[in-house]
């Protein structure tokens, strides 16, 4: 019963009922009685337009006469009075249909944003005096101890104090591989603990945690309006009053000069008013941007406002940070040099010596060999390397200073800078060249950017020349800047910004917030990273994948296209019908189409912005 009541209150029910009455009235009018038909029309009118009339009266009360609902009410009631019953009802009925579509479109867009936002629990399990309590995440103070069980999401940014587990960070970073955490590891809100129970100490308030920051980013998007949106708002400011004045003239002048009777000229003026309603325009353009922001958000790309779209769409130059942006920020072996022993032996020796170290280079060496030999002792020399004793020999693994310290003979050897040297019993047996690996999708993404019209690509890095050169060659980037301080980076970027139409800077936000802010489009990668980066950037990419860059451009172009299609379509159709109406060729039916028909088509078109474009780059 309540369900039925609920349904009867819905727009759909009102449309159906009003439509039934409308059709019966049409039939009655042709066949039986005109009075009966009028009664049916009025019922249909009240069903479809009741709320609009109420709102129109409210509009009058607050002296907002150019409200679309006011225009619609005037037109509809006016048409009823001059005897055009069918038109009078149709105006309201179509208006209701149009609004229903509008609401549907808006709901879709909101739902897509919300699904992205549903990444963080509202409650946290806090340990107080050894007892676990479930409380609102908002009430948890910094330095509280929380418990997170398998399958649960981390409610607040915290640091693990006990327990080991794999965590799924995909909703925050887009990284699909789980990450292992152990005491000391940092947890961001929104991570999902997959196995194992963790105790953690909170380091932030729930409001300031990673997930909350991302939400507020999306919530505050759109406060900066796009060029297209501002165009429409300022346009409608002049447009509506102008049309109302013309409508008045159209109604009054012809009868005064005896050209038409009053009834006809009022009808023409009403038609004119209906056509003039700016709602198609006013709603469809921001809708396109809502759609674009929503669609992009569901792909892990957060646009910080409508104004960013046009800059992204016209990007001409792209400057990249290197470490963590083009490269993974993880070490990998790129070359092994051996003297007198085999590569397998060398790697086994290095891995075995490093078995107790937790230096990132040690991790990389260990993963290169399955043959770990037992050691009797090992000592780590900070900043240099490791010296390990085996049953039958002693082995030193480390940088050049370690070799010098142990007075290993290095004469006549050509080994690249930054390699890890391996010495056995004081004699150099080889070296391993370790470097940061380039992201697998990087080259393809740069290629896609170029095909999307990017003319200039550049790496701006603080790293050594040979490393930057190697990376730029691997991903085919035109220019490089190396050994740059953050300030030099900024200056170099400024030079690029000044010489091209729209420049994008892509960085991970470590030491490059000024550059993110300076570029026309600052793109911060790996959404949860740095506060200052999120603040300075125009677009935040939640994942670490560079393939989001071409995708972002495609989404921006599609959104801009849609908004212009809407503007041109709505203005074109309206302009045409306005002229026809003035000449007396357009009736109310055409006027209704010009208004709600165009609005619905424009909104449907806007909804395409929600669907991310296919990865078709030509």
């Amino acid at each position, binding site marked *: 019963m309540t369900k039925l009541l609920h349904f009867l209150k819905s727009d759909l029910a009102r449309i159906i009922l009003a439509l039934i009455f409308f059709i019966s009235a049409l039939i009655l009018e042709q066949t039986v009685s005109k009075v009966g038909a009028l009664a049916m029309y009025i019922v249909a009118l009240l069903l479809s337009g009741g*709320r609009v009339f*109420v709102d129109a009266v409210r509009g009058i009360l607050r002296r907002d006469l150019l409200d679309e609902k006011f225009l619609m009410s005037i037109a509809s009631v006016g048409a009823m009075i001059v005897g055009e019953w069918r038109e009078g009802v149709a105006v309201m009925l179509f208006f209701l249909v149009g*609004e229903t579509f509008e609401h549907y479109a808006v709901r879709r*867009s909101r739902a897509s944003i919300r699904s992205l936002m549903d990444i963080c629990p509202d409650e946290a399990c806090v340990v107080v005096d050894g007892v676990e309590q479930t409380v609102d995440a908002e009430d948890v103070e910094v330095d509280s101890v929380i418990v997170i069980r398998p399958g649960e999401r981390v409610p607040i940014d915290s640091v693990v104090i006990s327990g080991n587990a794999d965590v799924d960070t995909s909703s925050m970073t887009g990284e699909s591989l789980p990450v292992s955490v152990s005491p000391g590891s940092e947890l961001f809100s929104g991570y999902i603990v997959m196995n194992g129970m963790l105790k953690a100490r909170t380091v932030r308030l729930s409001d300031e945690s990673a997930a909350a920051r991302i939400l507020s980013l999306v919530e505050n998007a*759109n*406060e900066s309006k796009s060029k297209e949106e501002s165009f429409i708002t300022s346009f409608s400011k002049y447009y509506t009053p102008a049309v109302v004045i013309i409508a008045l003239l159209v109604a009054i002048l012809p009868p005064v000069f005896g050209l038409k009777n009053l009834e006809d000229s009022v009808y023409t003026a009403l038609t004119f008013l209906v056509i003039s309603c700016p709602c198609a325009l*006013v709603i469809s353009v921001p809708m396109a941007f809502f759609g674009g922001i*929503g669609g992009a958000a569901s792909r892990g790309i957060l646009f910080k406002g409508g104004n960013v779209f046009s800059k992204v769409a016209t990007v001409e130059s792209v400057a990249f940070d290197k470490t963590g942006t083009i490269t993974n920020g993880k070490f990998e072996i790129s070359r092994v040099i051996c003297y007198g022993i085999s590569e397998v032996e060398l790697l086994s020796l290095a891995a075995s010596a490093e078995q107790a170290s937790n230096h990132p280079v040690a991790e990389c060496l260990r993963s290169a060999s399955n043959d770990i030999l037992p050691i009797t002792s090992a000592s780590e020399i900070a900043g240099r390397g490791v010296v390990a004793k085996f049953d039958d020999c002693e082995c030193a693994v480390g940088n050049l200073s370690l070799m010098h310290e142990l007075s290993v003979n290095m004469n006549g050897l050509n080994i690249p800078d930054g390699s890890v040297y391996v010495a056995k019993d004081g004699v150099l047996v080889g070296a391993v060249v370790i470097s940061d690996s380039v992201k697998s999708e990087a080259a393809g993404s740069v290629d896609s950017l170029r095909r999307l019209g990017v003319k200039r690509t550049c790496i701006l890095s603080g790293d050594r020349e040979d490393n930057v050169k190697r990376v730029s060659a691997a991903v085919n980037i035109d220019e490089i800047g190396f050994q740059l301080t953050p300030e030099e980076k900024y200056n170099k970027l400024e030079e690029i910004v000044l010489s091209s139409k729209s420049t994008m800077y892509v960085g991970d936000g470590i030491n490059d917030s000024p550059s993110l802010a300076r570029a026309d489009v600052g793109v911060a990668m790996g959404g949860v990273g740095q506060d200052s980066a999120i603040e300075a950037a125009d677009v935040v990419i939640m994942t670490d994948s560079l393939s989001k860059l071409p995708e972002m451009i495609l989404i921006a172009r599609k959104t801009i296209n849609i908004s212009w299609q809407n503007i041109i379509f709505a203005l074109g159709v309206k302009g045409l019908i306005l002229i026809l109406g003035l000449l007396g060729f357009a009736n109310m039916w055409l006027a209704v189409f010009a208004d709600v028909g165009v609005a619905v088509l424009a909104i449907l078109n806007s909804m395409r912005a929600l669907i991310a474009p296919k990865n078709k780059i030509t």
Partner: protein
Amino acid sequence: MKIKYTITGLDCPNCAAKLAGQMSNINGIESAKINFLTEKLTVETELDEQQAYKLLSAAATAFEKGIKIEK
């Protein structure tokens, strides 16, 4: 003081902007912003919470039937 509300029942971004404009004109409300997409109303006010809520929800109901404000 900054207060955030959830605002539901708004029809279009245009109405949202109009309502926000009216709310900003209320005595004691310094600024009011409505994000139509996320249905969030953010006001900057010197009034206490109860008073602000009263005035804001009165403005909302006067604007259009069915607009609701919740903390």
